[in-house]
């Protein structure tokens, strides 16, 4: 399991490492990636420098980026839903834990699942955690079918 620092490097090694625990993911989507960033969409919190740096780097490498705070805003929602509906995008975030909680809950509605989380927690425990409003976490979502090996 990669740690948060490694994750934040946004290198293709990061996703390769995530993919190593999800062989179907590697076979399905990652091999098609030819651009710099392995993430198609990156959501970040502009009130946290670490998160801004992560997004800036991702943007330089070709990812679309969007700001998200505690509550979901319309722009971030639109970005998320359009990427979800593509069923192709790899979506990453470096957000508050509370925010990650509801984005992961939304992901299931669009047949997406969490393939990486800097601390592995089910979506609901995130929502219920005290201080989840403040702490930052890193996460990656990929379409469910990439791991549906049936």
């Amino acid at each position, binding site marked *: 399991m990669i740690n948060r620092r490694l994750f934040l490097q946004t290198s293709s090694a990061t996703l390769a490492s995530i993919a190593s625990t999800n062989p179907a993911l590697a076979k399905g989507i990652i091999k098609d990636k030819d651009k710099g960033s392995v993430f198609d969409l990156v959501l970040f919190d502009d009130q946290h420098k670490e998160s801004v740096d992560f997004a800036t780097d991702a943007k330089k490498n070709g990812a679309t980026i969007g700001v998200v705070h505690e*509550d979901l805003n319309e722009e971030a929602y639109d970005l998320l839903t359009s990427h979800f509906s593509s069923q192709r995008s790899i979506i990453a975030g470096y957000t508050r834990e509370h925010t990650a909680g*509801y984005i992961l809950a939304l992901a*299931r509605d669009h047949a997406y699942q969490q393939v990486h989380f800097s601390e592995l927690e089910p979506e609901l425990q995130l929502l219920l955690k005290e201080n989840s409003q403040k702490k930052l976490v890193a996460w990656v979502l990929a379409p469910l079918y990439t*791991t549906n090996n049936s």
Partner: protein
Amino acid sequence: MSLPPGLSQGQFDNALSEFRTAVGNDWVFTIDEHIAMYKDYFSPLQNTEAQPIPSAAVAPDSVEELKVVLRVANDYQIPLWTISTGKNYGYGGPDSRVNGSVIVDLKRMNRILELNEEHAYALVEPGVSTYDLWREIRRRGYRLWTDGPSPAYASIIGNTLERGAGYGLLGERAAAQCGMEVVLANGDVMRTGMGANSNAETWQQYKYGLGPYVDGMFSQSNLGIVTKMGIWLIPEPPAFRSAEVYVSGHEDIIPMIDTLRPLRLSNVIANSATASTNQGGHIEGAQGPGGGAGGGPNVDGGHAPGLPGWRARLGFYGYDRVVEANWEQVQDEFASAIPSATFHSSRFAAPYNPDEMLTESKLAAGIPSFQEAPIWNHGGTFVSMVMPFTGADYWDFLQTYDGLYQEYGMRYMGGPLHFHAPRSLMTLAGVPLSSTDNAVNERAMALCENLIRVSGEKGWSEYRTPLVFMDNAMESFDFNDHALRRFHETLKDTLDPNGILSPGKNGVWPQRLREERA
């Protein structure tokens, strides 16, 4: 992997391959990692053998695909459990009652089929969330308001079928429903109300059509799968005031409720008002031996040290002068009943900017938000009781519940009160669960079962209940030796003879699985 009851692995594999033919390979989920997504994280049965585990999940994209799923389930007698977005957290999440059920996940049917500004309604599929609908209204620039429960990811259809509670002008969600399309267990597709006239343009405008009104039969039910629903919206009011009334004494809840009742009945307070203690425990209402959140002291200037005061949340809507006049009058009414009452409010006017509103105001304006978790912290299980809308009844409830909680080493100080159905009071009582200590969860279950039993004797019953308490909760509807349940089961056996649809939902079991009743 669990199997549906009575099926061999080979038979189930055959069924799965028929499901795959129906909906496509990518939309039948069987691996453990995916099945885990359909687990109920709030279940008191977590970490025990008794927690039902689905055998698979199937996600059809259309009524035609759904009909094939039903045909296969009938052929193999597989119990299904339908979810729209499966966020029924606290009441069972996406989980089922029978081990080995196949979850029918309708998330892919997520189209807003019609959005009508002139007549203020929408026609939606099950996967459409409150946020999706609100966003589409904003995108089109329509001057319409919606309403819904506090979590924005709630399905319009799932929450309305559960008869959920909102906070704005259409908070009694079941009352805002108008017309539905239902696929019955045998695959027949039926439209209710005016929708039964294939030429009618009033499907979402007049609820009843002709003859028996059947829509309610499909709410909190296992008689059919709802694939389309009409939902009423409301024209955006020119002005809105989001208001709070605070009282510091614990017993002040009695005059607070009695002051609220006539104002709510006469529609001066037109929104789904709520009240709650002004201090939350880990779980609303459930507190450790010391009385306060986490067991610490809980003193908030109340008359009785250690007992919390209360706040009511109200909304006023319409023309500016009417809004202001109503709010002034309401403050007078509360001040004369409870001289120490204090007030707080914020005024907003069209065009509304959600970014200027705090969560409380957003909820009262039907603006979906994802911020609710710290306000409604449901880290446990709970019961939700309906009782008369009087201070005396609620006080009796508080005393009764506190007594029962004390038998289990806890205190009950009062949970959130909902006045969404304007002639009754619904309130929640939560009990903490543990993700590591099963003894805590066993104790929570025992307490809740006791609460439900004693409540039944007092004439209070649940408005909606978690999966594990469905049989207990239905038991309290006991008139004439449970004539209502016998009626439900007669319908169930007639409409769904193989008992494939959500067996055990709200204590209604099909004949072939009736011995499963707790």
